[in-house]
């Protein structure tokens, strides 16, 4: 096995400085892909955080009685796009405000109690919408529909829908970005392997005439592909990590990729390299 590996290393060396240029090129693509991946992870994390919050909150007018509010709940639930509606009374809201804001909540309560003597928190309806339908446009339409009820003071979008939109956009960008990255990486790695093959064409021809087995001929191509793919990925990730480390304070709490994501990126690029090696071998050797 030692000699075939030496032969593979010699094959890599034949491409000369093109290896370096290729590593920089594919490394740059890796860094761009990492940015998209980080952005997607971040949105996903935000989405996870907000998963249990309602999609819409409809505030009821102060004049609306609790019984009337609960009737409205059953009316709204008849809408097929709405999954569930929770009624939160003024008292519940006040209690939650105290619990969430602690001292500040008490202060607000006392302030209003002294001046007006009423609970400042409005009763509200927490509305959960089918996540499959959550597009910004669909949500706005539902919100407008709810607002037509005279018992409703205002309807607030919690941002959940917006996040879903961003998640969808990010997924789409990731998909397109990955496809472009694969094509460009394929082209770069393929060109370098082809260059090495051309440089070694006479040697390969001689080896074939002497009786070289196909696997022996294939190995240098695959090893070069693995080498270029793997090293480019590591260089790209390394540079990206360094940049993140340098600008840590500006980036706030953004974390680098997880170890699984790093392994996935490196393995994916090595796989692309190996596949390029295989196809280039079939085409040129």
């Amino acid at each position, binding site marked *: 096995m*030692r*000699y075939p590996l030496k032969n593979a290393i010699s094959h890599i060396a034949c491409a000369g400085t093109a290896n370096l240029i290729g590593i920089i090129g594919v490394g740059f693509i890796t860094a761009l892909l990492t940015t998209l991946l980080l952005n997607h992870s971040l949105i996903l994390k935000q989405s996870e955080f907000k998963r249990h919050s309602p999609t819409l909150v409809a505030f009821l007018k102060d004049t609306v009685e609790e019984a009337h509010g609960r009737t409205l709940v059953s009316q709204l639930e008849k809408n097929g796009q709405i999954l569930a509606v929770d009624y939160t009374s003024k008292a519940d809201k006040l209690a939650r405000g105290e619990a969430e804001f602690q001292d500040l909540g008490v202060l607000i309560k006392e302030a209003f109690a002294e001046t007006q003597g009423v609970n400042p928190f409005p009763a509200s309806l927490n509305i959960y919408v089918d996540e499959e339908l959550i597009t910004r446009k669909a949500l706005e339409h539902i919100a407008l529909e709810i607002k037509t009820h005279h018992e409703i003071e205002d309807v607030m979008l919690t941002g959940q829908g917006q996040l879903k939109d961003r998640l969808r956009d990010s997924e789409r960008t990731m998909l397109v970005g990955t496809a472009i990255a694969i094509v460009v990486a394929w082209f770069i790695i393929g060109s370098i392997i082809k260059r090495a093959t051309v440089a070694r064409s*006479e*040697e390969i*021809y*001689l*080896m*074939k*005439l*002497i*009786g*070289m*087995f*196909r696997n*022996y001929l294939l190995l240098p191509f695959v090893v070069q592909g693995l080498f270029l793919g793997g090293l480019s990925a590591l260089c790209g990730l390394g540079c990206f990590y360094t940049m993140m480390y340098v600008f840590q304070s500006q980036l706030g709490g953004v974390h680098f990729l997880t170890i699984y994501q790093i392994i996935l990126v490196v393995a994916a690029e090595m796989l692309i390299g190996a596949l390029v090696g295989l196809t280039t071998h079939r085409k040129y050797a």
Partner: protein
Amino acid sequence: MIQVHQVSYSYNELSVLEQVSLRVERGEFVFLVGPSGSGKTTLLRLLYADLMPITGDLSVIGQKLAKLDKISLPYFRQKIGLVFQDFKFLQDKTVRENLALPQRLAGTPSKSVKENVNRFLHQMGLSHHQHALPTEISSNERRRLAIARAVINNPVLLLADAPTEGLDLRLSLEVMALLDALNFQGMTVFVTTTDRQLAEKCNKRIIELRDGGIH
């Protein structure tokens, strides 16, 4: 050992071989003599399946070449020793590495490769040049290296394309003596040359190739 039946070959429109037939028996030493451009190298390339004939059948070492596939081709070629007219050495590898190449490709264990290479370097008088590059040794030494590389795997058939090209008579006879010794050990030897006188001096069977046909 070699059976060529009604073989024709042409490069685009230019016909090189026309209806060539010949037969070489096991253990024979045969010269294929003909002027430059008569198709000797083409016939040799057909014999080691580097080219495929347009018409006709070829059988070498009991193997019908038309039936060779990509998997069996390396096994077939490992049974044949080839001496190329331009030697085809790996220019960036030493004499020792060039000589070891067929053994490495055949998957011979490292220890045996080392022993065999040492033995052949000694036999061919190349021991003192083992770490030199092929460009750093004389033309005659390169020729001996080419022969050594061709026979290091102990092939049953040796195909040598103009191994004495450019050599004077004394050196040509030296090379022929080397090939004769291999033939004496049982190896079938098929040599192409433009030098009919040399072939006659060696007192071996001569096949003449002229204008794309056997005469």
